[in-house]
């Protein structure tokens, strides 16, 4: 069964460093998302991406964050200058859509645990 994959599974970085989190969505999916979950808290939406551009972003997704789909398969989240409060689990998700039967199910990757020290 197709699945969303994410790399790395765990990233440790120092405050102020740039990190890139990578995701490979399910191949026929067209809509991509990043969510964040700080330990012990709820899952929060960061950004959605379609047709090579951001379609919606939350207040969390400030100028330190950017997303990109550099090729036909990868979807990346970049944090330019990490802060301690960026430590969290980051989930990538994708959904198909763009068909007569809209599917609202979002399929999640296993997450990348980011630790900022």
């Amino acid at each position, binding site marked *: 069964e197709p699945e969303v994959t994410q790399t790395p599974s765990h990233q440790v970085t120092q405050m102020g460093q740039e990190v890139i989190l990578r995701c490979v969505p399910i191949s026929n999916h067209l*809509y991509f*998302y990043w969510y964040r979950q700080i330990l012990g808290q*709820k899952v929060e*939406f960061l950004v959605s991406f379609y047709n090579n551009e951001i*379609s919606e972003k939350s207040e969390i997704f400030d100028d330190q964050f950017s997303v990109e789909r550099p090729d036909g398969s990868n979807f990346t989240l970049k944090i330019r200058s990490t802060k301690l409060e960026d430590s969290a689990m980051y989930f990538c998700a994708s959904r198909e859509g*763009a068909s007569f039967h809209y599917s609202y199910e979002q399929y*999640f990757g296993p997450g990348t645990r980011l630790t900022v020290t």
Partner: protein
Amino acid sequence: AQTVTQSQPEMSVQEAETVTLSCTYDTSESDYYLFWYKQPPSRQMILVIRQEAYKQQNATENRFSVNFQKAAKSFSLKISDSQLGDAAMYFCAYIQEVGDQAGNMLTFGGGTRLMVKP
């Protein structure tokens, strides 16, 4: 803005028994979907069950079923014959149906930690 509330931070159930997790949501929309996600200790988000708001019939997936009360904006999850592997965080989530719009995002509740006693 839509909100999702899970009023039970923790629940406990005896193996083989039945447990119900509560979820309420607030929306002014009439077309939407609701989901329950399971998050085991690995922290992977696993879809358990979904419910379309336009469907009156409650969704069922094996031992998992929902009680969807649209007027009350309530969406509870019932787990029958609980198993040790059901122990996890459970998140209720809402998504608005707005046609094929990429921007519609999931809004999650705060989660309920389910413990299963052997």
